[in-house]
C-alpha cells in the first residue's frame, strides 16, 4: 500500500484548488452527506437539452471526497446527462478495483488508487452519488 498511489498530485491540486465553485441561482440542487464521517456536499446541475450545461459544488470533507467532487464536475460538464451517468458507473467500477477503459475515464483515473483503500471508497463516490440523485430529480427530467 503506497500513500503516493492514493494522494496523487492531480488529486491534491483539485483539493487545494477545487474547480466549479460558487453556487448558481437557477439550478437543481442536491445536498448529500456521508453520515458515518460527516462529509457534506451540495451539488448543482444546470441541464439544457439533455446536456450538462453547468455544474457546481460546495462541500466540506477530506481531500479524497473534495478532490473527487471537483474532478467529477470537470469531467461531466458538457456531457449528455446519460453519458455523465454512464461515466459515473465506470468510475464506481474503477474505485471498486475492476478493469475499466482508461480512455473513457481520462483524468479520473488518478483516483484509481482509492481502490486499494477500502475505507476511502465512500469518500471518492459521494459526489457521484450526488450527481445521480440530481440527475434523477423531476426538475431535470
Amino acid at each position: 500500500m503506497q500513500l503516493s498511489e492514493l494522494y496523487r498530485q492531480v488529486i491534491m491540486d483539485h483539493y487545494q484548488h477545487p474547480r466549479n465553485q460558487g453556487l448558481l441561482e437557477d439550478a437543481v440542487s442536491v445536498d448529500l452527506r456521508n453520515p458515518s464521517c460527516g462529509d457534506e456536499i451540495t451539488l448543482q446541475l444546470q441541464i439544457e437539452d439533455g446536456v450538462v450545461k453547468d455544474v457546481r459544488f460546495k462541500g466540506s470533507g477530506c481531500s479524497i471526497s473534495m478532490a473527487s467532487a471537483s474532478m467529477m464536475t470537470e469531467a461531466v460538464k458538457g456531457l449528455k446527462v446519460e453519458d455523465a451517468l454512464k461515466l459515473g458507473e465506470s468510475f464506481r467500477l474503477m474505485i471498486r478495483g475492476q478493469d475499466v477503459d482508461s480512455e473513457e475515464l481520462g483524468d479520473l483515473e488518478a483516483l484509481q488508487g482509492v481502490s486499494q483503500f477500502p475505507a476511502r471508497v465512500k469518500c471518492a463516490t459521494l459526489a457521484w452519488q450526488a450527481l445521480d440523485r440530481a440527475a434523477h430529480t423531476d426538475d431535470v427530467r
Partner: protein
Amino acid sequence: MDISKIKEDFPILNQEINGHRLVYLDSAATSQKPQSVIDVLKRYYETDNANVHRGVHTLGSRATEAYELAREKVARFIGAPDAAQVVFTRGTTESLNMVAYGFARPRLTAEDEIVLTPAEHHSNLIPWQQVARVTGAKLKYIPLQEDGTISLEDAKKLIGPATKIVAIAHVSNVLGTIHPVRELADLAHEVGAVIVVDGAQSVPHMPVDVNDLDCDFLAFSGHKMCGPTGIGALYGKRKWLDEMEPTYFGGEMIDVVELYEATWKETPWKFEGGTPIIAGAVGLGAAVDYLEKIGMDAIREHDREITGYALKRLSEVEGLEIYGPAEGAERGGLVTFNLGSIHPHDVSTVLDAEGVAIRAGHHCAQPLMRILNVPATARASFYLYNTKSDVDALVDALASAKEFFQHAIV
C-alpha cells in the same frame, strides 16, 4: 502492572500492519481481547453449549450455570447488591433504549423534562429524543463550558421539579471529560428524578461502583472492556427494574402464557426474551476476571499515565489542536484532536500506513462536533495494553502526515 506482559496477553497486537508494528489506539471504539477471553469462548462452544433455563440435560445445566455465573461476576464488578439487578443486553445502545422505552416512556408526560448534555453519544441522545417525541416531554441541555466540562451551577439551575430523567455519560467518548455523576445523582434525587448513566467509556477504564455513584441505571458494553461484541449490560435499582416494562416479548421471558394474556418472569429474566447471548455473557465474565486480576485501580492509573504522556507529546506537535479538558485535569483515556487543516480521514489514512490505528469522524456525537465547530476530529484512545512507545509512534506518524500534506494543504 507489567505492560510488556499485558501486551502479550492480546494476540491480535502481535502483528504488522503495512509493514509496521500494529499500534492500536482505538479502544474507545472497541477494545482488543485477551487470550483468556478467546479461550473461554472457544471452550464454551467446545464443551458446554446448550440453551439456557430450559431442558434438563447436563449441557443445559452447564450453560445455564455459566450464564448466571457471568451475571454474578458482572454484578460484583460494578458493586450491584444483587446479580438480579444486571440485565444482559447487546450493549450500551440497547441498554439505554430499554430504559428509554421500558421505563421512561410509560411515565413521562408533556409536563416533564429530560436533562442531558450536548456531548452525549448518539446512543444516549436519540432514545431520549424519541421518547420526548412520543410523550411530549422536553429535552434540556446542560451547556458545555469552554473546556468541554459542565458546571454543577448550571446543572442545579436546570434540574428542577419538572425533571424526571437525567441522562449523562460518565466519561465523554469525544472529550474524555469525566462528569460529576454522584453530584448529579444527588441533584436528580432531590427533585425525585432518576439518573441514567452511560458507562460505556468508564466501566472498562476505572473502578465504577453503582452505590458510590448512586445511579438509578448504568449502561455499558462488553466489547469495550476486553469482552466479545454483542454483549453488554444494564444495571438498575431493584425497584425501577421491577417497575420497568420489557421491551420485547417471546420465549424465555414469560411466566404463564394464556391465549389472550401472559405474565412475565422476574427481573432480570423478563428483559431477556429469546435465546440470550450466552457465549457473549460467558466471555464477558472472563473479561471481568481478566480486568479484576490486573485491578481497576491499576488500569485507571495506567490510563492516566499514558493519557498524560500523550497530552504532553501531542502538545509539542505544531499546529495540532486538542479538544477537551486541559492538561492536568482529570480525563478519561483518550485524546481528540485535529492536525491543522488536514482532514482527520486523511490523517487517519497516513497513520494507518504506519501501522497506527486511530478513529476519525464525528464519533457518534454530531451536536458536539457543531459546538466544536469542526466537521470531524481524530481520536486516539488508550487501554491497558498501550505503552508510551505507542504514543511515540503516534507522534512520529503525525509528523509524517504533516510532512506528507505540507505542500498540499493551504
